[in-house]
């Protein structure tokens, strides 16, 4: 018994009520009517009452109303009183005979109802003298009329005798039992919390979307919560209605049985149509047929939104289950015909109405898949493609569409689905495009899982080189495969892997597509081929403002990365991030975050790097892109190194290394040396800095296909000089000159001139000062400040103290802005060495970070926190927190004071 009660979730209130009822009936009779929706748990509560009663030594008599016995007189009373048969024989003769005839135990003329009522009452009160009697009657809506009359009679006369009646009936149905004056308890659907608890206990493996869907569909109905999981699938099919188990079907279908056919068909249309929009449905059918469903409380019309709302989601399932195949097809055809302006939904309904393969519909679905994919809904796109495959005329088309679905899944981070689809696609005879897409999907799955990049590269390169695509550059499957091959070549990082990529690029006819062409020159080995691609890069950037295809924005960003032009597309990068934050495609959000992290780092917006890198790490982990996580760890590590959190920097670098080694990701391994180099240099351990920098690229050599080498050129030369390796420093500077890195970007020009100034003569010193004085140079805040600090050291050693101090003051502002504490301390020390007395005590001049500066400016201009938050895409709390730091930094006591303080900076 304890077990029965223990299984009830969220019914504490009702159980307390039942306990109270049991207590009161034993001390003088009581009645309780339990009411509620089908499946809400009335029977479970009655069973609990019976169990509790039996445990307290009550005599429990139970009976159920049955739909098909409702016309059999006294059938319920027969069930209920059968255990008291012997006691009936001890009743006074008139009453005994009346009850015996009524219950069908003996022949005779039909007894007067009042005689049967009195006989039953006497029988029960007599029996209760030895042991209290509890009558438990379920499904009262189906009990026969004469039994209902007797039960009502007894219920109103149990006062004074230890007899209890507890009966359950459905809301929305009437019964012969007159409920007037009887105490009622209404059983409500389970609370969200109790429903969740029930699901977690009964189906502990059910998680995520499926669990959410179950809770959503069941709406707190415990029967649905228990029965639905058997038929629930993780489907993104937009027209799916969950099939009902027999028990659920019985409950929900019973309410539909009496509806006129026209009403039932209208509800079928409304179910498939999905939105319930009255105007749309009016075009398909006569809405007057809705009235019977409204009266039966199956639907209601929400006047404010103009929509038909089903009272319970499972009514829709019952409607579908009760329809015939022909009715369903007709409904889908009618809806498709009413949706000429909505090709996507139209395609779905046509597909649902298709009895067999239909290439025209399959093609429409395939187009619809592209549309939803551009919106970022990969799951819906996969569902469309799978259905398109089912409707395909030829196995080749089917395999190609399945492979496309698998690729979509792999790219969008749904590995489970993608793997299954891939197996299906491979089991079918494959056309060339299908094979390439399948190989592409497999390669992506491999690097996103535990596979090594060399195998993935070999597999994809093999599929590309043996494919029957005629090397047509316009072939979308080939284009996608080449992009993936480039990514794999980058990860693998070796000349051999890149040779395969370039060999295949050269085969494309008539020429590689624009972005792929630019990428192939700017991304793999920028110091050798990047500069020449500048004009093509200009064209890509010029086309960006009107660009709708987010994939092109992502790839353009990658193409401009090593030429330091991401700053020109910040707005587009934010667009990628925002669409993801608003529930869109995470892969594009991650790309936007990667681009912004890099751009922010170079421009000295280090607070923002830390925020975005944390976001990126979270999204990569949560959205099925673990292979992108390392990049965000790298950004966190680099900032930690620059800000003096050395231990964190080394630990993050080691985490990247441990992840990358088994996968053969040479580029990630090289990148992990960047934070190590930076941390060592910031600590002043130039021996270690030299070692880490030359792990990326040896001195005097610009290693091929190692773009990250451009990031440590200055570190390498500075560390070489600090450790007495003059020859190596000079060799590296010469190698940079020979490769003409100045042609890559203004930033690389700054670095070349900075290196020259350390290594070479006076002329180089004058040139770096000119470069530093050029407008825009300080945009590369960290590197410009580093160069100023190092160059000032050289000037100081030559006793040019005034000149040295000029650079040191600028460097100090730069480092303070970024919060680069160790560099700030080094700059102050250098300043003292250069004879500046103020450096010892003065706080850094208004050390606002760029974001703080921006917020302070906006607050000074009179904007509220909320307005600032909206403008900068932050939360008002974050804005408040920034101001919290800004006030003490500027020493101001009001927003008005901010303006004056800012003017003084």
């Amino acid at each position, binding site marked *: 018994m304890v077990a029965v009660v223990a299984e009830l979730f969220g019914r504490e209130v009702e159980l307390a009520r039942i306990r109270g009822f049991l207590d009161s009936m034993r001390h003088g009779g009581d009645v309780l009517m339990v009411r509620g929706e089908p499946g809400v748990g009335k029977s479970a509560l009655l069973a609990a009452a019976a169990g509790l009663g039996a445990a307290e030594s009550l005599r429990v008599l139970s009976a159920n109303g049955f739909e098909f016995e409702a016309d059999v007189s006294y059938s319920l009373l027969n069930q209920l009183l059968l255990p008291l048969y012997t006691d009936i024989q001890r009743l006074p003769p008139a009453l005994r005979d009346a009850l015996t005839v009524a219950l069908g135990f003996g022949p005779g003329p039909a007894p007067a109802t009042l005689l049967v009522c009195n006989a039953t009452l006497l029988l029960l009160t007599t029996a209760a003298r030895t042991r209290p009697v509890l009558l438990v009657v379920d499904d009262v809506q189906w009990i026969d009329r004469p039994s209902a009359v007797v039960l009502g009679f007894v219920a109103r006369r149990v006062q004074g005798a230890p007899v209890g009646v507890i009966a359950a009936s459905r809301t929305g149905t009437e019964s012969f039992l007159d409920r007037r004056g009887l105490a009622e308890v209404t059983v409500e659907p389970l609370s969200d919390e109790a429903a969740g608890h029930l699901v977690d206990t009964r189906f502990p493996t059910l998680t995520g979307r499926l669990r959410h869907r179950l809770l959503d569909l069941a709406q707190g109905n415990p029967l649905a919560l228990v029965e639905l999981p058997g038929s629930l699938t993780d489907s993104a099919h937009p027209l799916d209605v969950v099939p009902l188990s027999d028990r659920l079907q019985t409950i929900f279908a019973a309410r539909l049985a009496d509806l006129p056919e026209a009403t039932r068909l209208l509800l079928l249309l409304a179910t498939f149509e999905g939105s319930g929009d009255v105007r749309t449905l009016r075009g398909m059918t006569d809405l007057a047929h809705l009235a019977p469903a409204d009266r039966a409380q199956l639907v209601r019309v929400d006047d404010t939104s103009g929509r038909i709302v089903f009272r319970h989601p499972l009514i829709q399932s019952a409607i579908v289950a009760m329809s015939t195949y022909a009715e369903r097809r007709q409904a889908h055809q009618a809806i498709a015909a009413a949706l000429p302006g909505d090709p996507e939904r139209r395609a779905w309904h046509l597909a649902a109405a298709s009895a067999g393969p239909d290439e025209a519909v399959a093609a429409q679905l395939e187009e619809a898949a592209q549309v939803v994919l551009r919106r970022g809904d990969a799951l819906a796109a996969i569902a469309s493609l799978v259905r398109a495959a089912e409707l395909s005329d030829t196995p080749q088309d089917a395999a190609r569409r399945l492979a496309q679905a698998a690729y979509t899944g792999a790219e969008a981070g749904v590995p489970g689905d993608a793997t299954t689809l891939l197996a299906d696609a491979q089991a079918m005879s494959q056309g060339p495009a299908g094979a390439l897409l399948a190989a592409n999907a497999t390669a992506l799955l491999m690097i996103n899982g535990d596979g090594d990049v060399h195998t993935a590269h070999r597999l994809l390169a093999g599929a590309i080189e043996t494919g029957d695509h005629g090397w047509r550059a316009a072939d979308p499957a080939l284009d996608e495969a080449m992009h993936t091959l480039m990514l794999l070549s980058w990860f693998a990082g070796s000349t051999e892997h890149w040779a395969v990529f370039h060999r295949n690029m050269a085969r494309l006819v008539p020429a590689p597509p624009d972005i792929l062409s630019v990428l192939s020159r700017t991304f793999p080995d920028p110091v050798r081929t990047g500069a020449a691609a500048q004009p093509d890069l200009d064209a890509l950037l010029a086309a960006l403002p009107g660009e709708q295809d987010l994939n092109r924005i992502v790839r353009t960003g990658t193409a401009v990365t090593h030429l330091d032009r991401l700053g020109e597309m910040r707005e587009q990068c934010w667009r990628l991030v925002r669409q993801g934050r608003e529930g869109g495609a995470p892969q594009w959000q991650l790309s936007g975050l990667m681009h912004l992290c890099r751009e922010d780092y170079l421009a000295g917006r280090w607070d923002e790097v830390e925020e975005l890198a944390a976001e990126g790490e979270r999204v990569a982990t949560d959205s099925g892109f673990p292979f992108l996580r390392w990049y965000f760890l790298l950004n966190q590590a680099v900032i930690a190194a620059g800000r003096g959190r050395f231990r964190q920097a080394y630990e993050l670098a080691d985490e990247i290394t441990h992840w990358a080694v088994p996968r053969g990701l040479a580029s990630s391994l090289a990148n992990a040396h960047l934070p190590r180099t930076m941390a060592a240099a910031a600590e002043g351990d130039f021996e270690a800095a030299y070692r880490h920098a030359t792990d990326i690229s040896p001195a005097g050599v610009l290693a091929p296909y190692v773009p990250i080498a451009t990031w440590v050129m200055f570190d390498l030369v500075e560390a070489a000089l600090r450790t007495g390796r003059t020859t190596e420093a000079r060799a590296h500077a010469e190698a940079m000159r020979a490769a003409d890195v100045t042609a890559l970007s203004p930033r690389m020009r700054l670095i070349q001139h900075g290196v020259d100034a350390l290594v070479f003569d006076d002329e180089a010193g004058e040139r770096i000062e000119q470069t530093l004085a050029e407008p825009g140079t300080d945009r590369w805040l960290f590197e410009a400040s580093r160069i100023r600090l190092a160059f000032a050291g050289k000037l100081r050693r030559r006793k040019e103290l005034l000149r040295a101090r000029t650079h040191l003051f600028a460097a100090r502002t730069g480092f303070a802005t970024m919060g680069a504490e160790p560099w700030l301390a080094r700059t102050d020390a250098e300043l003292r060495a250069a004879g500046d007395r103020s450096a010892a005590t003065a706080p850094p001049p208004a050390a606002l970070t760029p974001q703080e500066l921006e917020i302070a400016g906006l607050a000074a201009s009179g904007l509220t926190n909320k307005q600032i938050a909206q403008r900068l895409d932050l939360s008002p709390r974050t804005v408040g927190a920034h101001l919290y730091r*800004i*006030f003490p930094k500027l020493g101001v006591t009001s927003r008005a004071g901010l303006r004056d303080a800012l003017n003084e900076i």
Partner: protein
Amino acid sequence: MSRWAYFLLNAFAAMADAEYTHPHARPDEPQAEPALDLGDRASVRAAFRSIVEREWGPRALEEGGR
């Protein structure tokens, strides 16, 4: 800057927030710009006192007050 001066400026930042409303505050009352020397302990204490009085009312600092 002393710890208390830092806290005081934090408090000013919170009060200057346009959305900030303490249930007892009277935001319509003009907020006097305090003449403040952050190096002077008495000045900092007086400024704290004026904030508390403005936000919670003069009774807040009275003996036995809230």
